[in-house]
């Protein structure tokens, strides 16, 4: 077992290098979009955007696996069919608000095929979490997600270009029909659409600058000018937006532009 892990770890170190070469979208690896492949994210150090006195300046990220795409409507439909208690009409109010899967035509019907391959949105954290468990996966932590999402787009080495992609997305109203996965850019880990398509749930979304839950007192200091007090980079407007967005969430909320992708520990099967 140990040996397997070591081999996997070795592969994992090589993988990102391999992805540097994959500049062209639409390469054969990703032709089966419904089959959400995972890539390994090599561990490393993450510098939290929001810094707290009671936390180290650097968070160690252990190697982990992450879906290359956000989970699509079609993939989520398979989950709902297998677990009808998560169907639109069955779900408990405790686990999702009234907007749950409202883009679908019915409990087990997406309706039309335009959004089959688009990220599933209007899903609560509970639903996203249940899907991940069903798949034998989990939601990525905020640190993992931010770490993976900070990788540069393939073919664009500068960090500033990434910020531009994000701000350009913020600048445009949501499209009427959400584009399919892999419609924006791919980063050097081989991950698609980390920015510019949908917001994504993370496991600990409600830990933004607080101890424990989203009704804690510190979370509320994240507005107006007070928000700049604890940030690592005051000019990273894009990051401010993500953290502000997460701060406004509760686990039962569903939002038209909020989806998710799954992660997996590297050292566990």
């Amino acid at each position, binding site marked *: 077992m140990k040996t397997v892990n070591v081999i996997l770890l070795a592969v994992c170190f090589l993988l990102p290098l391999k992805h540097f070469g994959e500049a062209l979208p639409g390469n054969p690896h990703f032709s089966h979009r419904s089959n959400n492949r995972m890539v390994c994210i090599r561990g490393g150090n993450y510098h939290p955007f929001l810094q707290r006195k009671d936390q180290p300046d650097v968070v160690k990220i252990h190697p982990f696996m992450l879906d290359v795409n956000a989970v699509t409507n079609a993939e989520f439909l398979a989950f709902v069919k297998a677990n009808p208690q998560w169907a639109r009409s069955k779900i408990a109010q405790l686990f999702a608000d009234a907007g749950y899967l409202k883009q679908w035509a019915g409990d087990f019907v997406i309706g039309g095929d335009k959004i089959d391959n688009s990220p599933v949105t209007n899903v609560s954290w509970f639903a996203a979490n249940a899907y991940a468990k069903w798949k034998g996966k989990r939601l990525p932590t905020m640190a993992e997600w931010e770490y993976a999402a900070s990788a540069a787009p393939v073919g664009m080495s500068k960090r500033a270009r990434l910020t531009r992609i994000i701000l350009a997305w913020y600048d445009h109203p949501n499209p009427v029909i959400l584009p399919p996965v892999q419609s924006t850019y791919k980063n050097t880990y081989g991950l698609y659409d980390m920015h510019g398509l949908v917001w994504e749930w993370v496991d600990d979304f409600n830990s933004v600058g607080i101890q424990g839950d989203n009704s804690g007192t510190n979370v*509320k200091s994240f507005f107006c000018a007070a928000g700049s007090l604890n940030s690592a980079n005051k000019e990273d407007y894009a990051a401010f937006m993500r953290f502000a967005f997460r701060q*406004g969430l509760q686990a039962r909320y569903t939002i038209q532009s909020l989806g998710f992708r799954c992660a997996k520990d590297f050292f566990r099967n």
Partner: protein
Amino acid sequence: MKIVTLNNRLSQINIFRPILLLLVPACIFFAGCTSKAKTNDPSNGADTVTGEYSPALTFAPNVPEARDNTTPKKVIVEIEVIEKVMKLADGVDYTFWTFGGRAPGPFIRVREGDEVELHLNNNANNKMPHNIDLHAVNGPGGGAEATMTVPGHTSVFRFRALNPGLYVYHCATAPVGMHIANGMYGLILVTPKGGLPYVNKEFYLMQSEFYTKGKNSEPGLQPFDMDKAIKEQPEYVVFNGSVGSTTGQNALQAKVGDRVRIYIGNAGPNLTSSFHIIGQIFDKVYVEGGSQVNQNVATTLIPAGGASIVEFTCKEPGTFNIVDHSIFRAFNQGALAQLVVTGQADKNIYSGKLADEFYYPPIPADAGKKDKPAIEPAMPEPSFADRFKDGHTLFESNCSGCHQSTGLGVPGSFPPLAKSDFLMSRQDKGIGVLLHGINNEPITVNGKNFKGVMPQLSLTDDQVASILTYVRNSWGNKSAQVKEGDVKKLRGQ
């Protein structure tokens, strides 16, 4: 009729309030006065609320009508946040984040002591979380922390409007600057218990800046430019959300004799406004939108995130430009609104133009003396290069105003010197003109007739020689150096 009497009585109270406040410290000495002082204490917000209503919300430049409420009410205000593309200037679009679908957002009018219940709805199609910080609120974040709302959700909170005044409200979600820069602001008026004095017209104006990637007027959908915002270098400074929002067909309208009150806010996010109406004097300014009234002000400062109430009576008809008197903002960046006043002109107040005649500059008192300069020791004639250089400097300060630095003059008014047949025909002609000027004598230059005045300049022979050397050797002209002796000779004649 009863209402009118009541209003009059209330406005009197309002007028006397500053006096009452002044009396408060004095009253401390007199126990009998303390209860009187208490009833006027603005922090006393515990008055019983009776009844509730949803007020009419208006968009700029309109202001909701005053209500005659005499007791505090519960006021239910609903605002929907909408992110949408709208026009910023002709051919220029921008993704606005708005309160109520417009920038600025709706004007909220409540009364001192009211209990305001605010519902903030974040449209499900929006991408961003939003909230609202009303400067009229006593409480953390001005309501921002209580109204943090993700798309598709609604937040509700309540506050007591304890302090009368005019206040800005804005979105305060991080990064707050971007939310304001994208259009999320408006005004809330808390009228004092006695109401505000009656006026004929009330208007709502709000100044703000826009930081676009493209330069001013560059067409298309322009994204927000964070670098320009941090440097505080906007491409647009506008009233009511877009260039031309309140000009021409959309100008504010009033009549001669109207008493006008403008509620003006400055959303910023960065700049302080030097608010001014060209040709009007604010006989009343509620400084920074508060209770202190200043009188007879032409330009009033409005800080970013602040407001002001200005009042004046329209005395003359005409179009009055409303500007930020940091004037390049008005001229180049869009900070221009207009008030059109119709009615009878009063020549007793403003005559309009009475005359337009040629201005003859006075001849300096010592001009005659220079005609006969004291005999100076003859200086050696300078080199051509020195003459030319001095001549250039002298030309720029004495001559270029009319003849232009290009030497081309102004067609029809001031003859050209460049390739001028008149100037180049004879050296002494130029010397004579410089020494004596021209007084309405007709001259012909390159076939064109000129009739006008060139003032006699008080120049020394040396200076005349330098200027002539310069003009006779510039812009394609070519001739010999004019010497001081040549000028001296002609002056003597």
